[in-house]
């Protein structure tokens, strides 16, 4: 296969990684029944504070480069986890609406990122470096696409399989799904619903924070205002729905969005040629594509439209197609659980 094409695929996998990690984090939070709507703001705040921490360590010259990066990542994860905990606390303990608190935190975190990031705008800082996996990097096709990346990207693969295994192949995962689907039943069987919800909200938030660091230390190095990842938090939230709260499908969704973006930015810089014929139209309109895709995918997976179309299909195909196209949220998503 054409080498340039493989490199493009590889860069799509690389740039999709923050989206992958953030969506996977949100997936486990929502599986536990909590919606953390604050993603678009938390990503920005985690990104800027992670970058600021790594940069400060670099300037002070106190740590080696890998440790500077590690410090940045730790700070970013802490930021994401704390914001998520606030959503969890306000919902679980204070009985507030998760969507309202999440939305306010979206705006607040974004403004806070702008305010605290003012002194860190457009300065170079430490970056995560590439690390090819020995042997695997030479694998035909798969090597250049998946194994000539950095450690964060490899971590995202492990995360996907890890979450899948935990959700569907472990008893802990069974409980996790239960507290998001039928918390009363889970409670009756001895699950500590509230504590587990705190824990998975915390964990999911930490992953969102990690995704923030993946932007500022790798994919979009540094900080700028408006932030480079603006809007990606919403896309990640939509990907979770598109992915039907299943890690494999969620990751597929993230790659799909990143691919579409790569195609649109490629056309905007190089023009569009079909059979050697240059096609001209206002390329700025291509920026609408990810958002159109967002609406279309949500239309397919959650709308009544699919259901109506399915009625026209032969019965044998119906069920399989429905399972493939539609996605239903955890039944207790966004609701509170009160112990009697």
């Amino acid at each position, binding site marked *: 296969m054409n080498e340039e094409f493989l490199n493009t695929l590889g860069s799509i996998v690389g740039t999709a990684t923050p989206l992958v990690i953030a969506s996977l984090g949100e997936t486990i939070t929502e599986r536990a029944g909590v*919606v953390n*709507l604050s993603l678009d703001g938390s990503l920005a705040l985690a990104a800027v504070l992670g970058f600021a921490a790594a940069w400060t360590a670099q300037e002070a010259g106190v740590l080696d480069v890998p440790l500077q990066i590690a410090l940045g990542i730790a700070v970013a994860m802490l930021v994401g986890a704390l914001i998520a905990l606030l959503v969890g606390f*306000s919902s679980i*303990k*204070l*009985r*507030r*609406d*998760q*969507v*309202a*608190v999440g*939305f*306010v*935190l979206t*705006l*607040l975190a*974004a*403004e*806070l990122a*702008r*305010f*605290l990031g*003012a*002194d860190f705008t457009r300065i170079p800082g430490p970056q995560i470096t590439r690390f090819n996996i020995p042997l695997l990097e030479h694998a035909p096709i798969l090597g250049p696409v998946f194994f000539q990346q950095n450690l964060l990207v490899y971590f995202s693969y492990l995360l996907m399989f890890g979450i899948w295994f935990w959700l569907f192949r472990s008893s802990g995962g069974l409980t996790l799904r239960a507290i998001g689907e039928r918390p009363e039943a889970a409670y009756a069987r001895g699950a500590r619903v509230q504590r587990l919800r705190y824990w998975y909200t915390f964990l999911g938030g930490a992953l969102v924070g990690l995704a923030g660091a993946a932007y500022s230390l790798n994919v979009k190095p540094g900080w700028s205002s408006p932030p480079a990842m603006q*809007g990606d938090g*919403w896309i990640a*939230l*939509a990907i979770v*729905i598109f992915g039907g709260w299943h890690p494999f499908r969620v990751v597929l969704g993230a790659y799909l969005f990143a691919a579409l973006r790569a195609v649109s930015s490629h056309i905007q810089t190089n023009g569009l040629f079909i059979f050697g014929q240059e096609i001209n139209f*206002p390329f*700025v*309109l291509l*920026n*609408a594509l990810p*958002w*159109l895709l*967002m*609406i279309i995918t*949500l*239309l397919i997976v*959650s*709308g*009544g*439209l699919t*259901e109506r179309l399915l009625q026209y299909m032969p019965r044998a195909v119906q069920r399989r197609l429905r399972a493939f196209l539609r996605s*239903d*949220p955890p*039944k207790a*998503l*966004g*609701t509170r659980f009160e112990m009697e």
Partner: protein
Amino acid sequence: MKNPRAIGIRITFLLLPIAISLAIGAALVIAVGRDPLEVIDALWKGAFKDTRKIGGVVNFWIPLTLVSIGLVVTFRAGLWNIGVEGQMMMGALFASWGAQYIPLGESLAPLLHLLLIALAALGGMFWGAVVGALKIRLGVNEIFGGVALNALVNVISIYLISGPWQPRIGGSAQGTEPFPTPALLPEFSARFPTNIFMIALVIAAFLIVMVMLNATRWGLNLKAVGRNMRSALLLGVATERTSLSAFLVCGALAGIAGSYRVLFTFDNLRPLASGGIGFLGLLVVLLLSIRLLWVPLIAFAFAAILTGSTRLQIALQLDSSLAGVLQGMLVLFVILFHGVQEVFFPGTLADDDTVEDSATSVSSVVKENP
């Protein structure tokens, strides 16, 4: 509410969120090496130093109050209209089209203004209807539909500004040429640069929506839909039509708010002309637990902070996003402390605090079960 202890607790819970927000705000300011008192001074002078500044506050207050009134309507129906920002922008686009292409001269300026405002309302309603149809007919959650439509209208406006509507000289993505004078809303005076007709319109909208919400069948239906969609349906409320009407009303008001930004504030169309005012409106309404009565007052306070913050950059080289940080913290702590009060001091709540319930039921929107 005769118990003095209960009154004391209520007052404490009213002041505590404000005090904590200010304290954290001061800590942030100190953390970046500035004096909090200087910040307060700059904010105050930026908003109230003279009548020109106060006019500036009013110019934020007008669109902010309009969108907030509209958002009370959608929240009443249990709908999260995050798309309000895009509805403002679509109103601005429609008004900008009219301002450039409707050939009415100076003598017919008042007629032109009415036309442009009506066009803007239509534009906002159109974009609101799209969110509504996606939600009601096609099952796309209005939060995500709204976010996507916000982004889409921004792409459209950038396309228009850099394409068909680009200035003849020095075309860039900065903005269109200034609109012809007859299309621009006039200033009351150079000393107090704001538009009186729009202020009157805001007051009228406030009164009309107040009456509509509290004294008509429609208002009752909205509340029923917002509280419990299924029982509203069983009671014979046309739930789909009621939800859609909420989007249309909010869209119209947001569209008018958008027209004010381009026909008065900027005199031309720019990218992101809505300037986050729609999102700020969501904060205003959340702060008030969806009560309409205090919207104009809180909107004025938020508009003052926003106007004052423009001075932070000039006077103290401090990023103006501090205004958003303060507003966001205030709303967050009001919501959180309302929860603390409800959970730990349940006897101290005023009767009308139950309005919060309709915000709580909003969480059901994240679960789409068509």
